[in-house]
């Protein structure tokens, strides 16, 4: 499944995985293998599969924290409740707008930064580590810091606007500014990380391709457009999928941006679905309703991911190549 080889990171890993088949035949019937993979599947069954199924079950009940064991079956009433509820649609829209504001500029910038980092640079390790510092900063710390930077009275950002003779902005109360502020935190934390992912993809592109393109008279933009971008396509697809999943679950940033309140601002101007679920379940003691929100979020994620994959696959097919999401899968939970 090694789709791309790796040039300089870990040379010993570049050995082709093909001989594996021989090894498999070599020691047939290793029943002990089940014991080796058992811990993972035990953890997985107890703390993932069971909770997912139970969430589905609870979403059909009027579950409360106080009466957890004797909740009433209410069928799809929670879902009906949810879909006729303005708060849900409001949070749904916010999740999408914040998702777009935080993801699109982030990935575009990451692509540009990766391109620059791909030059022969002095101190390249320093730059790579430096742009990854935000990733090492926890979202809680980053949000507390940015909430202060965006503070209407004490914050550096409004001061800078003032210094430029621009009107100050209500980064907390107004809808768009507050959504932009929350997105800024996401962008700050993840741009460097995605840039490194792109950089890794760029370094795996065969340099002969560039030389051939240059000989055909391709300029630097043409090379980026016709060599770099196509070569990066699986990587780009992967980052889009991961960012989509991340954006759909956005929770910590908007929670801490409003002092740990799950309302997403006084007018719910940046309440996401993740926050809404938390509010329903833990603030309002409506665990059944929160479970319905959880499943709805899950379906939204699947839908969004499948849409991404379908678009990619149609593109690839049109261009006579095979879409491979597998190339992209491994880092999903690095996030």
């Amino acid at each position, binding site marked *: 499944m090694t789709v791309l080889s790796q040039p300089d990171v870990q040379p010993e890993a570049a050995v082709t995985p093909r001989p594996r088949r021989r090894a498999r035949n070599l020691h047939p019937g290793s029943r002990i293998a089940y014991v080796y993979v058992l811990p993972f599947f035990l953890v997985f069954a107890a*703390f993932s599969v069971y909770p997912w199924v139970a969430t589905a079950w609870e979403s059909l009940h009027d579950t409360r924290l106080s009466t957890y064991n004797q909740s009433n079956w209410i069928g799809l009433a929670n879902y009906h409740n949810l879909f006729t509820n303005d708060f849900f649609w409001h949070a749904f829209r916010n999740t999408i707008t914040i998702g777009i504001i935080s993801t699109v500029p982030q990935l575009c910038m990451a692509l540009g930064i990766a391109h620059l980092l*791909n030059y022969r640079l002095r101190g390249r390790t320093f730059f790579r580590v430096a742009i990854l510092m935000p990733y090492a900063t926890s979202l809680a710390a980053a949000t507390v810091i940015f909430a202060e930077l965006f503070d209407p009275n004490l914050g550096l950002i409004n001061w800078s606007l003032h210094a430029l003779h621009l009107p100050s902005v209500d980064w907390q109360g107004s809808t768009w500014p507050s959504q932009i502020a929350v997105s800024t935190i996401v962008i700050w934390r993840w741009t460097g990380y995605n840039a490194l992912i792109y950089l890794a993809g760029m370094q795996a592109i065969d340099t002969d391709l560039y030389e051939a393109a240059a000989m055909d008279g391709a300029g*630097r933009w043409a090379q980026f457009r016709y060599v770099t971008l196509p070569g990066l396509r699986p990587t780009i697809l992967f980052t889009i999928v991961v960012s989509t999943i991340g954006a759909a679950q956005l929770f910590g940033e908007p929670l801490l941006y409003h002092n740990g309140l799950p309302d997403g601002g006084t007018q719910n101007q940046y309440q996401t679905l993740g926050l809404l679920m938390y509010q329903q379940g833990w603030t309002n003691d409506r665990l059944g309703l929160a479970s319905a929100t959880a499943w709805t979020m899950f379906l939204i994620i699947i839908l969004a991911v499948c849409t991404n994959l379908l678009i990619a696959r149609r593109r690839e097919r049109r261009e006579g190549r095979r879409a491979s999401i597998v190339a992209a899968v491994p880092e999903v939970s690095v996030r």
Partner: protein
Amino acid sequence: MKRTATSGGKGAASGGVLDANWMTYVVIVLVTLVSIFPLYYTIVMASHTNAEMAASRPPILPTLSVFDNVKKALELAPLNRGLINSVIVAGSLAIGTVALSTLAGFAFAKLRFRGSNILLAICVATMMVPLQMGVIPLYMLMAKLGLAGHLTAVILPSLCTAFGVFFMRQYVASAVPDELIEAAYMDGARPIRVFWSVVVPAVRPAMAVLGMLTFLMAWNDFFWPIIVLSSQNPTIQVSFQSLATGYAPQQSIVMAGTLYGTLPVLVVFALLGRQIVGGIMQGAVKG
């Protein structure tokens, strides 16, 4: 963004073989500044009162009062407790995940057993499912087991991640030559012996990378700890939340506490940065 993407080194070929020109450096340095400035400015914010921050010309240098503010922050929120707890949680998760993932990765890469492909596919598919999905029953389960509020509740569910298993499987498959395993079998070694004496020594670098990434992920995890832990027995992220949402007379105290809790991991990150960067980039190209 298109302009930045093509700005460096006019007229030459691209692809990691080219020298950068001054424009490239200018943009890269700018990006670096944006990445680091908020962290630096936290020190400034941590050492000035609200009144000083609201002045018409806000300060740009820190002062020694940052130490005083750290002391005040420690009185407001159990930051030291949070740090110790985070070391326990992230440390046990790093060790546990590396051990269990390497073992499972070895089985998937080098042992032949019925259903291995399906099991591996299940493993990969689960990486897509969000944690929020199951958080309510998971909380109830932990409460029933009497673990709510305990660090065990944070450690158990992530003890062996699909990412770890897949990461190690890929690495074992490519880094351990079959001849080596074959030779060990010829000598009459059993699989567990092969694992200890052949596989583990060969994949040590990958184990270190996975350990660091797991540690960082566990250290920064927010959603599940905030639900299952209380502010009496927090991880550092939960302490941040109680510090930021509690009553602090000055913002500088909140900033000082945030700085205090963030600095250790940033220092470690700066020291191990090269390896972590390598690990992330390696995860990106392998597959």
